């Protein structure tokens, strides 16, 4: 059945993607919706909530305010809170109610800005889009608004990381591992959008020599920086030794020549292609005998990078199934978008190996091997204990080291 999720979960929504992307930037972030949405975000989608201050609020729009289209109440409340809290910016985020009554949040944000003098942005989210779209909207808007003005390249080579949020990368050390990898290549840390960087650092994003796009959510912001400053971008996450090296080469080349925009994994030949001669490895060679590819499910840049790493290092064929927003430029040929649960059920039919969020075990044949890749935007904190920083996990250990997920332990198990 189309547009029905009957056996698994749903991904986080666009409004929460915006909140997550803006969480650390010092803005007054207001979801314009009925009370309750904020606790959904903070409980399930925001692991930083209890350890880090952030001004994320809900407008708690009432039934009569919605019916009457009382935008003035929202404006008064936001203006009042902004005068008291003095945020760096205000963000007004749409949700199902304002969507249905046609609230013009960009126009409302314009009035708030006029009254407070604080930069204000209205986001036409509706709660029905996916978190990927929300992150993309938020990072693009922040880049468009704040990363502007004349700037030269930094003296030392530097790199921005764009599209990094806990929704895709959790708080398991992945962010720090990516920076260590970048520093080992000789890059100074630029801005991270948006974990661990201030709005001021992001406003200087034009100084970087290259942008590393680590999720679909960072692509549009990288394109804006490319148009504005000519900064090249490369998409990929440095999983596995071989793929991390390849990604590093491409990033260094792009930073040097300033002219390459691509997803690093798109040039990785499929496993089994001519010319591939990895070193002997009994476990790997046994696995290679199987013809069925490893199906990797998740966000496109994360999953395709992981898949390419597995292919390069272990010569195991893979296919990515991407249930969330992406673009063709962020997928390899043969990878698929699978927005519907039905698409995944069909793709899993006959599968022998699947790497995905544990909640997807419900859809995978009992006979298949299942490898846990917990995804915060899908299962929240449920699998925190097995949610590992995959940049630092040796791939052969993951695939062959006995980390296969026990069957029947999912929500229905």
């Amino acid at each position, binding site marked *: 059945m189309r547009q029905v999720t009957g056996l698994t979960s749903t991904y986080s929504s666009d409004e929460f993607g915006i909140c997550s992307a803006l969480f650390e930037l010092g803005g007054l972030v207001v979801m314009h919706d009925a009370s309750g949405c904020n606790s959904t975000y903070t409980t399930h989608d925001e692991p930083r909530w209890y350890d880090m201050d952030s001004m994320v609020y809900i407008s708690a729009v009432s039934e009569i305010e919605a019916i009457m289209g009382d935008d003035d109440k929202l404006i008064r409340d936001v203006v009042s809170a902004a005068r008291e809290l003095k945020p760096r910016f205000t963000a007004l985020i749409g949700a199902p109610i304002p969507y*249905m*009554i*046609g609230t*013009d949040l960009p126009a*409302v944000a314009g*009035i708030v800005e006029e009254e407070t003098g604080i930069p204000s942005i209205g986001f036409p989210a509706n709660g029905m889009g996916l978190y990927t779209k929300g992150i993309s909207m938020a990072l693009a808007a922040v880049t468009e608004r704040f990363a502007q003005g004349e700037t030269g390249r930094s003296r030392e080579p530097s790199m921005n990381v764009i599209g990094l949020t806990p929704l895709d990368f959790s708080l398991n050390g992945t962010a720090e591992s990516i920076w260590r990898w970048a520093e080992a290549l000789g890059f100074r840390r630029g801005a991270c959008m948006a974990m661990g960087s201030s709005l001021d650092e992001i406003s200087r994003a034009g100084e970087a020599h290259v942008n590393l796009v680590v999720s679909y959510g960072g692509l549009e912001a990288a394109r804006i920086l490319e148009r504005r400053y000519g900064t090249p971008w490369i998409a990929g996450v440095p999983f596995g030794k071989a793929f991390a090296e390849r990604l590093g080469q491409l990033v260094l080349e792009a930073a040097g020549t300033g002219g390459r925009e691509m997803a690093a994994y798109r040039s990785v030949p499929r496993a089994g292609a001519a010319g591939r001669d990895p070193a002997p490895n009994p476990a790997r060679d046994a696995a290679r005998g199987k013809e069925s590819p490893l199906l990797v499910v998740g966000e496109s840049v994360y999953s395709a990078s992981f898949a390419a790493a597995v292919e390069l290092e272990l010569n195991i064929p893979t296919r990515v199934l991407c249930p969330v927003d992406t673009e063709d430029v962020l997928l390899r040929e043969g990878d698929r978008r699978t927005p519907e649960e039905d698409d995944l059920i069909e793709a899993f039919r006959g599968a022998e190996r699947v790497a995905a969020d544990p909640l997807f075990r419900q859809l995978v044949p009992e006979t298949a091997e299942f490898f846990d890749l917990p995804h915060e935007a899908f299962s929240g904190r449920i699998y925190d204990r097995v949610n590992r920083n995959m940049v630092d996990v040796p791939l052969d250990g993951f695939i062959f080291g006995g980390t296969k997920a026990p069957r029947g332990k999912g929500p229905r198990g």
Partner: protein
Amino acid sequence: MNQNALKIAVYGKGGIGKSTICSALSLALAERGLKVMQIGCDPKADSTMSLRAGRRLPTVLATMRERKDDFSLEDVCLEGAGGVICVEAGGPLPGLGCAGRGIITALEKLKAKGVYGRYSPDAVIYDVLGDVVCGGFSMPMRSGFADRVYIVTSGENMSIYAAANIASAVRNFGERGYAALGGFILNRRDVENEREKVLALCGDFDSEITGELPLSEKIREAEARGKSFMELFPKSEEAECVRALSRAIFT
């Protein structure tokens, strides 16, 4: 898109003659060699019928419902008389769904598909349902859509009340950067003191009568024959009134 394109939204009480005037205005502009796009913003989807000899066209919302995003602009933008590009936003079934939200969705979808760049019109006319009854019907006057709003009215009291209501909405939206009030179009019903009443309305909003049409048998006859009076009676006084209106709006 044509950066100099003028985009207007036409509002007014239901049945006051908005679609008749919009279609005639489209033809008058087309006579001047302009490329015109007329977008009906009413669930009845009948704005452009007189430009297409009574034939309906697939609405944007019905097409979206059937095909999601899998359609092209050519599926919903069809040429009518005078080469006018005709589009109908459409809407939900009567008594169901949300017509206002439908207008927003349809206009956003057209914009997302690049309608203004694809056809590069010199003039865009949004023909909007009766009154600004909810957020959706203010969509055509929002930033990025119409530049000016014209309100059709007669001297009948109900028509004037509706026109005043719409003009108030336009005024209230001023701080949002929405379309400005361009003026009132008097579609005469020959009631007593008609012009004076509409001039008084104009005074309340510091506006003017941009153009006017007489009460006309020719217009009724053309409607019955499923065509615009501009096509059937191009040399009539009524057609000249619309040409004058077109010159006043699109100088």
